[in-house]
């Protein structure tokens, strides 16, 4: 896990530095040439790239993430301050996504080929193809400007989380619903389900006790991966809703060429993503007795 994060940081570092040094943008158009040269020396851009990368690794291992060039403050607290907002948003979105996708996916699988099934598939496809910023704007139009019941953007109360959560949740619900449907269908076709039917068990028992429980297991692993997708989607949703999370900070730090902040975000995102996947793997062993035995 550590090696994955170090590689991710190294790649980001090199890509960022290949795209040019940010001194001119930081100092503004009225900066003189001597100021530019001074700042370049001060930030250490005069050293060769491998030396800069090595220095960066050394600092991270000591817990020093450098200072933001834009804010002139240590980078780590700046990023940590935004972490809760992003976690709230992604958790809300995941909840919305599960609440929509799991029942619909199961329903569609149980009634394969029916109108409900086709509608679910069509809905999932629509959800997947709508750009997430567009869903966001649509929600604002309906709930904030027409019904006037929710704020257009911002952060601070539970009312503020509804629209961004719905937008991001809808974005992932489509994919998740299709996945649930496929998994349940797969299980419904298996021998032990046929056995259950032939034992004369009630349909409800067959579906929930036999098919859904087994079918949803792989979905949990995929939820871990989905968390990563949601973090990606959060970048867009946070921009549309002025949500003060890591995604918004990432966009602004990249355009402002604030490399220490970008690298800290990449480190924390990588860490969170790895931890979530580790957690899902551990959860898996709890839920699936077959894995526990190995």
């Amino acid at each position, binding site marked *: 896990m550590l090696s994955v994060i170090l590689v991710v940081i190294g790649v980001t570092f090199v890509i960022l530095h290949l795209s*040019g*040094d*940010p001194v*001119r*943008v*930081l*100092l*503004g*158009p*009225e*900066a*003189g*040439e001597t*100021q530019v040269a001074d700042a370049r020396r001060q930030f250490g851009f005069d050293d060769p790239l491998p030396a800069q990368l090595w220095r960066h690794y050394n600092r991270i291992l000591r817990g020093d993430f450098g200072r933001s060039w*834009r*804010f*002139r*403050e240590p980078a780590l607290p*700046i990023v940590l*301050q*935004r972490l809760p907002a992003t976690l709230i948003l992604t958790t809300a979105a995941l909840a*919305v996504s599960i*609440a*929509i996708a799991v*029942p619909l996916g*199961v*329903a569609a699988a*149980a*009634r394969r080929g029916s109108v*409900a099934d086709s509608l679910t598939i069509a809905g999932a496809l629509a959800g997947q193809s709508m750009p997430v*910023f567009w869903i966001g*704007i649509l929600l*604002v*139009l309906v*709930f*904030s*400007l027409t019904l*006037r*019941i*929710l*704020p*257009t*953007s*911002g*952060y*601070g109360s*539970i*009312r503020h989380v*509804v629209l961004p959560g*719905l937008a991001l949740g809808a974005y992932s619900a489509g994919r998740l619903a299709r996945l649930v449907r496929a998994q349940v269908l797969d299980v419904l076709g298996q021998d032990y389900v046929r056995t259950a039917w032939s034992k004369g068990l009630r*349909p*409800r028992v067959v*579906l929930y006790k036999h098919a859904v429980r087994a079918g949803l297991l792989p979905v949990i692993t995929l939820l871990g991966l989905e968390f990563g997708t949601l973090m990606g989607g959060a970048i867009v949703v946070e921009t*549309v*809703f*002025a949500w*003060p999370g890591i995604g*918004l900070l990432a*966009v*602004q730090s990249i355009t402002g060429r604030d490399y220490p902040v970008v690298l800290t975000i990449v480190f924390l995102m990588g860490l969170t993503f790895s931890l979530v996947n580790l957690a899902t793997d551990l959860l898996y062993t709890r839920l699936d007795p077959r894995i526990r035995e190995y």
Partner: protein
Amino acid sequence: MPRNHPLRLSALAVCLITGLIVAVSMPLGRAQSLTTVTIALPNDAVSMDPMMHSHTITSAQLVNMYEGLVEFGRDGRLRPVLAESWEHVSTTIWRFHLRQGIKFHNGEPFDARSVKYSIERAMSPGFIVPAAFYHRLAEVKVAIVNPYIVLISTGRPFNALLPALENTYMLPPVHAEAVGRDGFARAPVGTGPYKYVEWVKDQRLVLEANPDYWGGAPKIKRVVFRPIPDVSARVAALRAGEVDLSMGIDLEFLPIIERSPELKLLTRPGGPLFYIGLNTLRGPFADRRVRQAANYAVDVEGIIKNILGGRATPTAGLFSATTPGYDRRLNRYPYDPQKAKQLLAEAGLPNGFDVDWYVTYLLPGTQKVRDVFQAIQQQLAQVGIRTTLRVSDNVTLANFLPRGEAPMFSFSWVQEMASGRHLLLLIHSKTRGWYYRNPQADALIDEFLGVLNPDDQPAVGRKLHRLLYDDAVHLFMYQEPHVYGARANLVYDPKPPFEALLRVVQMDKK
């Protein structure tokens, strides 16, 4: 098959979500307090320390907390603020008489020590103050005569000192030293009409009226600046009444604002100056006739009318209407493709030429750049100037231009133009000189910025304007206005009309 249960389950989920929405959505109190103003900005501030940034949107907010010795008045002339008056002791020494009895927000008195401290802080390494470039260039030194008189000297006669003092804000020396270099941004203190309350990054900056303000207590008691990066979200917040004023409105959204009776547009001249730089030192544009041909080949009026909806003013040269010596009679080169072809033929290029044009789409405040670039490209091609767009981001372009290798490039100038000091950076060969070196222009700029009596400056300015125009230094384009959306009940008639600052002290709500 269990037909009903899963569907019932999903119906339940939908009900649950809808219920949740209804539960948390109470009708919004739309009518905001008449003494609070909320302003939406495309970006958050980067620092509360006015000497730690060169960021237009940060300046637009900090102007409410800090003041300099002077500021621009409605007519574009400098007027006294913390300095009551000033006079020349010699051609290089100015005497400033400071306003007495002024206190910083923390109670510290404002006097000569804070002038010396603030100017020296701005010039010391590690701080970023755009104006400090001019201070260093002019070798500024500050001497205290008594608590309310300071002498400021320059290494040579340099009238751009005054406008450079406009955004060199006065800070309290005792407090600033006590909290330290990083601490000041967390405990900002100035003399301005508003005091700092809190800054939650990417959420809000809150200021409250300074009841003891020397210019009288402001009408608006509380200001909230909200960064909303997406333009459609800014317009939505304006329509929903969540904000009173929004900076950065794209052209596409103007009709929405114009149609709504609850909203209005505020425009003021003096936005970004958009131009196309030409390499006058090598390549085809080294010949002045070719540069003039390029100017004749582009239908700037047509571009403004058809792409920008009429919202821009063609520029003739690098002067804005507020620059001293701006010559109203100098019209932009007319659109005349025949004349352009003839000039190219005279320059020995009857069949035209191919040229790389370095651009970025990230030009702050400049509208519809892609469409504009395309239109220019087509019009230039018609006279034989065949351009290939080399697109990069602003950082890459900013690092590439100093090499002097671009034959043609696009940039915009968003800084202040009322003093003409921008000519020093854009034209003078001693400061940059990457694409233009003309001893005659250098001498005129030195003279222009060395004139001590403001009344003598326009005469020199006119000569300079003419020279740059005839020499076709750039492919001259246009200057756009600043465009703001506002609630109809907000009263705001910005005083110096050309700057992008948001002076809340001049606002009121009906």
